[in-house]
């Protein structure tokens, strides 16, 4: 989730990655003048900073001997800064961690096992939303992260656009999809597509080369995980990324089910129902497409709720993903967690902060901010309520988890290298220069990286 986006600022800082180590010289866990331990905590989402600052304030009130210093860096800088911090021994004590990154850190012994620290040893992981903590158990059985939030995917739309098409929000419920003819989901997308002459995609004389409104917003090719782009299509066929829920040793891109799903999705370009690669480029912006009326429906993750809700002139509606050949919809289920750096000079103190981050107290505070869906049910409830106050029914996102209609984000070794191979290939498929069947060879190549 939280796709890597390069901004000018992040890039400029990234270029200077070599010097970043110097920037963090203050060092973690520096004892303050009054002998209280200062813990450095890093996160990347600016929207969540106020909520976590409230958590930190509450934590400091309960623990006068500890201080928490929060730093926020944009996604692009975050990982380079973190790596530079590890190299220089000047990283944070505790940091927000991502599934695509933590296997590499764990492998190099840079993370502490939460089970070995006093404050977090007795954590009951069953109290979190189902399955979330499993994502953070390493191959060695160690717990490398305390679940903090979760996300699923759903369809965002503008109620006004749906009404113009002579439909009501009810028409978006109970849709079905299959990779052969796209089912009622494709019919809907076709109907919502309008060409320059006002002809709809399912009407006679529709011109797929001059489209004014695309039925489905493009979010790019999706790379290896296709979190918001194609994972929910392929997942609804019963396909799984790897041979195991976590720590799979073989990817399964040679499966015709994923290949057919990709062929269907990117085949929408030729039909005129989705924007071509040429239009969206490497920085797709589906929320902008929805906001400007360029696209009618946009599949995106729950972490984007705030952004979509703030679109001007859009009367936001949220619908469930279409159900697939397995008989129900399938969303990717992913979550972030807090990890403790093995370099922290105060691991036991860091564990107390992590324990608090994973408590009802903190997660309720985060939930009340209405930005993300916290990992503990009490926090989730608070978030549902906070979103509800803004007129947003987020039950679509939470229902998927309750009904277990989810699949995990892939967690394997060598994810960075695999993603570097897969992303250009997925782009090529989107552009239309590569046949999906070639993924069979690609699959062999990436599985070779895992050996």
């Amino acid at each position, binding site marked *: 989730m939280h796709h890597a986006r390069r901004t000018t600022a992040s*890039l400029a800082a990234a270029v200077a990655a070599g010097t970043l180590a110097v920037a963090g010289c203050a060092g973690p866990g520096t004892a303050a003048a009054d002998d209280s331990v200062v813990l450095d905590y890093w996160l990347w989402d600016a929207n969540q900073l106020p909520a976590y600052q409230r958590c930190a304030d509450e934590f400091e009130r309960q623990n006068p001997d500890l201080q928490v210093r929060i730093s926020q860096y944009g996604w692009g800088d975050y990982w*380079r800064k973190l790596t530079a911090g590890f190299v220089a021994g000047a990283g944070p004590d505790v940091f927000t961690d991502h599934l695509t990154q933590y296997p590499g850190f764990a492998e190099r012994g840079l993370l502490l096992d939460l089970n070995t620290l006093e404050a977090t040893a007795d954590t009951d992981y069953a109290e979190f939303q189902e399955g979330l903590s499993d994502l953070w158990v390493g191959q060695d059985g160690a717990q490398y992260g305390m679940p903090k939030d979760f996300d699923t995917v759903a369809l965002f739309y503008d109620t006004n656009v749906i009404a113009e098409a002579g439909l009501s929000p009810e028409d978006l419920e109970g849709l079905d999809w299959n990779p052969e003819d796209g089912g009622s989901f494709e019919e809907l997308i076709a109907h919502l597509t309008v060409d320059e002459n006002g002809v709809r995609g399912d009407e006679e004389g529709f011109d797929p080369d001059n489209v004014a409104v695309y039925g489905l917003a493009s979010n790019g090719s999706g790379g290896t995980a296709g979190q918001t782009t194609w994972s929910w299509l392929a997942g609804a066929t019963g396909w799984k990324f790897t041979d195991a829920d976590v720590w799979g040793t073989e990817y399964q891109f040679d499966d015709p089910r994923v290949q057919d799903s990709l062929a269907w999705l990117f085949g929408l370009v030729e039909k005129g129902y989705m924007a071509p690669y040429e239009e969206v*480029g490497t920085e797709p912006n589906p929320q902008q497409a929805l906001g400007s009326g360029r696209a009618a429906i946009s599949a995106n993750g729950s972490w984007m709720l705030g952004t979509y809700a703030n679109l001007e002139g859009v009367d936001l509606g949220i619908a469930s993903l279409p159900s697939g050949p397995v008989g129900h919809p399938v969303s990717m289920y992913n979550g972030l967690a807090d990890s403790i750096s093995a370099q922290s000079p105060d691991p036991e103190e860091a564990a107390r902060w992590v324990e608090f981050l994973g408590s009802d107290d903190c997660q309720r505070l985060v939930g009340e901010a209405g930005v993300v869906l916290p990992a503990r049910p009490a926090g989730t409830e608070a978030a549902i309520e906070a979103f509800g106050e803004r007129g947003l029914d987020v039950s679509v996102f939470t229902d998927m988890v309750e009904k277990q209609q989810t699949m995990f984000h892939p967690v394997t070794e060598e994810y960075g290298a695999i993603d570097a191979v897969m992303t250009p290939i997925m*782009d090529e498929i989107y552009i239309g220069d590569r046949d999906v069947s070639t993924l069979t060879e690609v699959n062999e190549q990436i599985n070779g990286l895992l050996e």
Partner: protein
Amino acid sequence: MSAPSVPRERVRRRRDDTRLALAFILPATIGLVVFYFWPLLRGIWLSFTSWDLLSPAQFVGLENYRAMVADPVFWNAVRVTLLYVVINIGLQTVVALVIAVLMQRLSRSTLLRSLVLAPYLVSNVVAALVFLWILDFQLGIGNQVLEWIGLERIGFFTSEAWAIPTIAVVNVWRHMGYTALLIFAGLQAIPPTTYEAARVDGASEVRTFFGITLPLLRPILGLVLIISVIGSFQVFDSVAVTTNGGPVDASRVLQLYIYDKAFAQFDFGYASALSVAMLLILVVVTFFQYRVTRAGQTDLN
């Protein structure tokens, strides 16, 4: 036998000079060793290792180089970089030469010279991002204009065929003033008398250009080419902020691939091997350029 006092003094003075010279050279030498030679040697050493920054480097011999020779992305990066350099330098040199000659023959206004240099004052990243918006497929004014005059929209940064030419031209726009100024300085060194002689002989403006300006400009032009070709091979920032190597691998230039390998995949050993390969390419290219343009010699004698 007493030696004459004059030579002794001379000897002493020479000894003093050496010390002084060493003192003057020292700071630059330290800088050169610490910031150039040491990183260079370390980079070459790292290219024989497998190193992910976080665990100790392991010696792997020629493994990285073997992988590189078999790596299609590397060869694609070489091809893409060469394509970029050819378009960028070819266009830039011609445009800059024309500007410089016009500046010399038509107007010597300082204001005009400053204006020509203006794009160079814009940072690479800003220039690239401004053009990214101007040439955006959907929203860019560039594509709006194309549509108004009845042409098809073009995915300047988002189609494989256009990505490299677009970035190359954007960088021509940014660098042409600077290059023109360098060439202009070379033109100033040509004695006006040769032009007077040409005029007396009744040579046309074109004949003068090819008969006098170009041959006498050769050493300067050679040096300008060498500098700008090296700079061109190292293109990175304008690619990173616009296409990030895409679509697919269409603009994955060498520097970007090195950066990806090092800072996105933490494969510093392989990235170092790629850097060494790039260094070798530059050494060869520069050597031939120097020989071909005879940049070290002048015809002005």
